[in-house]
């Protein structure tokens, strides 16, 4: 009998077999499950197994039985308080309580006087079993909550671990300045690489959190899967070159129309190819194959890299799987990427699977999307970021309360030849923008005094559209971008702002005629 069945069962304890049988017949007729027992050892065993309720006749509670029973009940876990019904033959409750010693003092004991009506017996037993069921439900909830707490603790431990290595590398590299305070290229590149790694980690975490809480809304359209691959390939080719691995792409001979969010489909493929690059040593090969299998479009990514141990194949799509694997850790993999891929594919009714002949024998990942019934529409190529601005000096106002970020932006923009005013709060920001009439204002959202939204609103009220306003914010969700645009911003970029983001913005500014 399972624990669940046992918890819905009442055990009748009566020395006279006929009484017990009779009660059992009536309770079963009312749809209740019951069993009969006369032996205290067996009763104690049933208590330990998690019985739903106990029904005693007074005569079954011999002087040696009540203390033994009380001791067994006391050993139950805190959440468990087994209901006990005692059928008595005595006139007053007070006398009854005393006569049962330690058992009578338990709060979950119900005394029922005999002679008892069948309906009363059934009703008392039903109440006892319902109370027990609620105990089990609360226990189950407690276990789930405990699991969540453990999961959170594990997450924080892994996150801490995963942040320490990149931060350690950045900290040491940033201290490798020469006597003039300059960093050489190698250390600066390392800082950039590790900072980008940390940014990706934060983005993946936020993405995963949004998927899990159902906040990702897919913007579906029918595209050819080759288009999603093209977009992700653009992102991954540099990483492959850096790792010195080659990627060969084999296109499908038939069209592969899929109804997907193009950005998310590209994200899925980028993650899977990125994973292959990460686990393929220098000189290795990756083959990305697009094909159709029945009503499914497939992306098959095969590599001759480190492979996957047989006992890990089943867990690699679980969150943090890579963090618990030495190779993944050394590569800076926290095990978010593949978990995110699986979740994004579930939103698209797609799948992902992996196989490997073992460690050192490469691996193969297969992503599937259902083939769409309509043909693909042609996707306009996304505008490529300009390589650099047009060289024309600009007037720029930076409104940022973080001292380091403000100084860094000012320094970078001045190095590009621009005239920069940098202020640290919202009121000063409005004043600087209105007075200086810059070509571009980069405005942080979380500012002291006025927040960035209010800065934009006041600027628009005062000087209208005579300046390009760009929100620079740590919050990059679509609703944050929408809120920025509604407040009067022209653009929204997410922190940490990359120089290329700003150069791209500058390249799109209309030319100046008056000069700076």
């Amino acid at each position, binding site marked *: 009998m399972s624990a669940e069945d046992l918890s819905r069962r009442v055990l009748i304890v009566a020395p006279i077999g006929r009484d017990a049988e009779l009660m059992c017949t009536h309770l079963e007729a009312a749809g209740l499950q019951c069993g009969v027992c006369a032996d205290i050892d067996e009763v104690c065993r049933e208590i330990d197994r998690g019985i739903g309720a106990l029904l005693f006749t007074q005569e079954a509670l011999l002087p040696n039985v009540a203390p033994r029973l009380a001791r067994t009940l006391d050993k139950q876990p805190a959440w468990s308080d087994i209901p006990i019904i005692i059928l008595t033959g005595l006139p007053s409750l007070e006398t009854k309580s005393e006569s049962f010693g330690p058992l009578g003092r338990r709060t979950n004991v119900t005394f029922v006087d005999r002679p008892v009506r069948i309906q009363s017996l059934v009703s008392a037993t039903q109440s006892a079993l319902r109370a027990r069921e609620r105990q089990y439900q609360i226990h189950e909830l407690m276990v789930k909550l405990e699991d969540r707490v453990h999961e959170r603790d594990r997450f924080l431990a892994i996150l801490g671990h995963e942040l320490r290595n*990149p931060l*350690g590398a950045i900290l*040491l*590299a940033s*201290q*490798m300045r020469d006597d003039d305070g300059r960093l050489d290229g190698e250390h600066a590149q*390392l800082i950039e*690489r*590790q900072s980008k790694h940390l940014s990706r980690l934060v983005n993946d975490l936020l993405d995963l959190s949004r998927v899990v809480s159902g906040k990702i809304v897919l913007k579906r359209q029918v595209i050819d899967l080759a288009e999603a691959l093209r977009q992700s390939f653009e992102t991954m080719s540099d990483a492959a070159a850096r790792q010195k691995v080659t990627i060969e792409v084999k296109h499908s001979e038939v069209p592969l129309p899929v109804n997907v969010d193009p950005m998310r489909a590209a994200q899925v493929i980028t993650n899977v190819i990125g994973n292959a690059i990460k686990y393929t040593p220098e000189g290795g090969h990756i083959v990305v194959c697009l094909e159709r299998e029945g009503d499914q479009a497939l992306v098959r990514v095969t590599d001759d890299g480190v492979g996957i141990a047989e006992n890990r194949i089943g867990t690699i799509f679980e969150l943090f799987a890579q963090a618990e694997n030495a190779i993944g850790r050394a590569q800076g993999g926290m095990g978010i990427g593949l978990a995110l891929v699986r979740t994004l594919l579930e939103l698209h009714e797609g799948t992902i699977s992996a196989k490997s002949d073992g460690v050192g024998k490469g691996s193969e990942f297969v992503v599937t999307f259902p083939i769409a019934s309509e043909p693909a529409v042609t996707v306009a190529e996304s505008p490529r970021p300009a390589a650099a601005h047009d060289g024309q000096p600009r007037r720029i106002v930076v409104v940022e309360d973080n001292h380091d970020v403000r100084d860094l932006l000012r320094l970078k923009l001045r190095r590009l030849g621009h005239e920069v005013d940098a202020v640290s709060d919202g009121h000063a920001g409005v004043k600087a923008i209105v007075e200086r009439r810059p070509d571009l204002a980069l405005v942080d959202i979380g500012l002291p005094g006025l927040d960035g939204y209010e800065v934009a609103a006041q600027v628009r009220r005062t000087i209208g559209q005579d300046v390009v306003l760009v929100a620079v914010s740590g919050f990059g969700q679509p609703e944050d971008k929408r809120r920025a645009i509604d407040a009067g911003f022209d653009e929204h970029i997410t922190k940490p702002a990359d120089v290329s983001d700003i150069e791209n913005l500058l390249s799109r500014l209309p030319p100046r005629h008056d000069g700076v």
Partner: protein
Amino acid sequence: MSGPMSRRISRVLIVEPYADLRAEIAATLRREHYTCDAVASADHATIQLSRNAYAYVVVDLEVIGGDLVSALDPSSRVILLTDNDSEPIEGADSTLQKPFSREELIARFTS
């Protein structure tokens, strides 16, 4: 030779799986004129220990295991890199919690 100069010709073995951190520890110590060998795993560390005598071994706590411990020269100072403020670890001359600064690292070599 004694004093700082003798310390500066010391050889250091760095055992750290995270490539960029390993490289920066080595670069920091080389700038202090230590001779460094940097490896990613306990297996490679064991090979290095059989070839060279090291005055210092800087090793990530997660890498250290039975074979590596038995390969260590008792005269080497062991600096253990850890993830948290753990209690002093037996066999380690000092511990260093990640992330650590250049000054914290160097202090382990001069103390």
